[in-house]
């Protein structure tokens, strides 16, 4: 019996020839990181543990992205704590808005910086750490105490997950992309449909996606409860890594005779753009069922959809239009490099001319932290990943989730709209 991609990675990381779903392993950690809301608790735990030095300062990262630029005095105190900790530990990878060659939203930033490689075991103090499976890594989210333990020991205990294989085939309709595929999938299996399991995305449609698009899909694996999400390493993965001077990466996939929990074939030819309705990422409907829903705000950005290709699509739709006077549009490139690229390409000018507020990279609005919080009764369409009650502000506000294309079209119309409505 062969192994799944996830089993192979965990076997290697735990120094075993083979492991199978259900085994408990102690895996070597290749990267442990956290962000400005989860790392302060990890620092407290590291001190309680009596840890003087992290296991490897080159394999520990801190990304301040949630409340940056510091939104409140208490968040300023937190980033200072982390800045001091990073200095004291000599961490190679510390990121904060307004300094260094790059900064921004962690799950866009770390792959962009070449910190993510196939086959790695990645412990992240953020649930959307599942993103990095897009590069063939095993990556999962953990709480602060687990992160502290991983940073102290360089190892993590894991139960090897069963893998649910999703095979996508067919031809994508215009304006349908990675975000629609993952929303559709979560809508089908539900928010606990992959609880404790691995989601592996394969098939000709996945092969045709860029790494950035695969990051969008893996990012939301956790919204179905998954421990990790993963895509086999192929030529596209290699191209992405070679652009970051990472060469000679071996191809990596499940064995042909691997055992799966389930295999789900998804034909995507008939799928229209998808929207997750309040207040669950599993409450997914085709766009046509919610079209014309009045809106108060639109957010384009986040670790799900704040990358350059997302901004290009949005700018293409907004070009020559004005944001409807009924809504406010906020656009946030996910990293400084993406911001500069968008500046260079004129995308930021397009957004600004359309009337959008364009911000330096931050997670701010996605989790209701700052930079565009909603009032009671307000309704937003957002390219982010979660639409729980109160996620982006007042508990009586409502969040719809969509692709950047649908969000941009909706900003022009002032209601939930199809890109064809404005193009």
């Amino acid at each position, binding site marked *: 019996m062969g192994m799944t991609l996830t089993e192979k990675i965990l076997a290697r990381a735990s120094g075993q020839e083979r492991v199978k779903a259900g085994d408990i392993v102690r895996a070597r950690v290749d990267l442990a990181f956290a962000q400005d809301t989860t790392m302060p608790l990890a620092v407290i735990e590291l001190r309680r*543990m009596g840890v003087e030095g992290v296991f490897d300062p080159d394999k520990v990262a801190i990304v301040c992205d949630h409340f940056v630029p510091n939104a409140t005095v208490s968040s300023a105190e*937190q980033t200072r704590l982390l800045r001091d900790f990073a200095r004291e530990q000599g961490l190679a990878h510390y990121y904060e808005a307004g300094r260094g060659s790059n900064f921004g939203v962690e799950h866009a930033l770390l792959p962009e910086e070449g910190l993510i490689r196939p086959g790695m075991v990645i412990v992240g103090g953020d649930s959307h750490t599942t993103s990095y499976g897009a590069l063939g890594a095993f990556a999962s989210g953990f709480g602060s*105490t687990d992160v502290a333990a991983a940073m102290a020991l360089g190892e993590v205990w894991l139960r090897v997950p069963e893998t649910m294989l999703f095979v996508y085939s067919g031809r994508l309709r215009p304006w349908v992309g990675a975000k629609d595929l993952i929303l559709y999938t979560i809508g089908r299996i539900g928010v606990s449909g992959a609880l404790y399991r691995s989601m592996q995305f394969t098939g000709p449609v996945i092969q045709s996606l860029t790494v950035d698009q695969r990051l969008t899909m893996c990012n939301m694996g956790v919204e179905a409860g998954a421990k990790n999400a993963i895509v086999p390493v192929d030529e596209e993965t290699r191209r992405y890594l070679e652009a970051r001077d990472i060469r000679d990466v071996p191809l990596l996939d499940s064995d042909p005779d691997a055992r799966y929990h389930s295999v789900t074939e998804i034909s995507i030819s008939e799928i229209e753009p998808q929207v997750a309705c309040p207040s669950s990422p599993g409450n997914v409907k085709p766009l046509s069922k919610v079209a014309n829903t009045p809106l108060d705000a639109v957010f384009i950005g986040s670790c799900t959809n704040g990358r350059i290709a997302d901004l290009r699509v949005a700018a293409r739709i907004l070009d020559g239009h004005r944001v409807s006077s009924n809504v406010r549009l906020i656009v946030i490139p996910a990293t400084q490099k993406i911001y500069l690229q968008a500046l260079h390409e004129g995308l930021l000018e397009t957004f600004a001319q359309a009337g959008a507020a364009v911000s330096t990279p931050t997670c701010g609005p996605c989790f209701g932290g700052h930079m565009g919080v909603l009032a009671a009764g307000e309704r937003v369409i957002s390219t982010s990943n979660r639409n729980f009650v109160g996620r982006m502000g007042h508990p009586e506000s409502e969040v719809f989730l969509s692709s950047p294309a649908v969000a941009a079209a909706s900003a022009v119309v002032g209601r939930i709209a199809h890109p064809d409505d404005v193009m």
Partner: protein
Amino acid sequence: MVVQGRVWKLGDNVDTDQLVPGRYLSLTDPQELASHCLEDVLPQFRASVKPGDIVVAGENFGCGSSREHAPIALKALGISCLVADSFARIFFRNCINLGLPALTCPEAVAAIEDGDEVRIDLDTGRIENLTQPFQCSAPPLPDFLTEIIDAGGMTAYVRKRMREQDV
């Protein structure tokens, strides 16, 4: 150890944004976090909950963010045990690491209502409803988790592992 308390019954997919809303994530003090627990969805909870009380919930309890602030807040309020149909995995690990008992037992969830008085033997997993006669046993935790709990939680476990690594 045996715990006993009033039950707060919650539904399916109670997420960590409900347990501690994102706007409070720049706090780390357990009591401050506790003062905002479930404030958007169950405003009477923080004022009425008493040490020893038990939270019983449906599927996928604690889904969403990795924020350990959520189980920290529940623990700081004195919640003695969580019982659910199922737990989201990061939240479950956080509970174990903090020493907040989290039992998976759909049979008990079905037989317990909000306001019931419930007694739980944490060593055996025995759950007894004192308001409406019912008892059952939650499946025991796997051995590797017991090892962490026996060490006194994750922080103490790490100290032990660091000593082993030094050898």
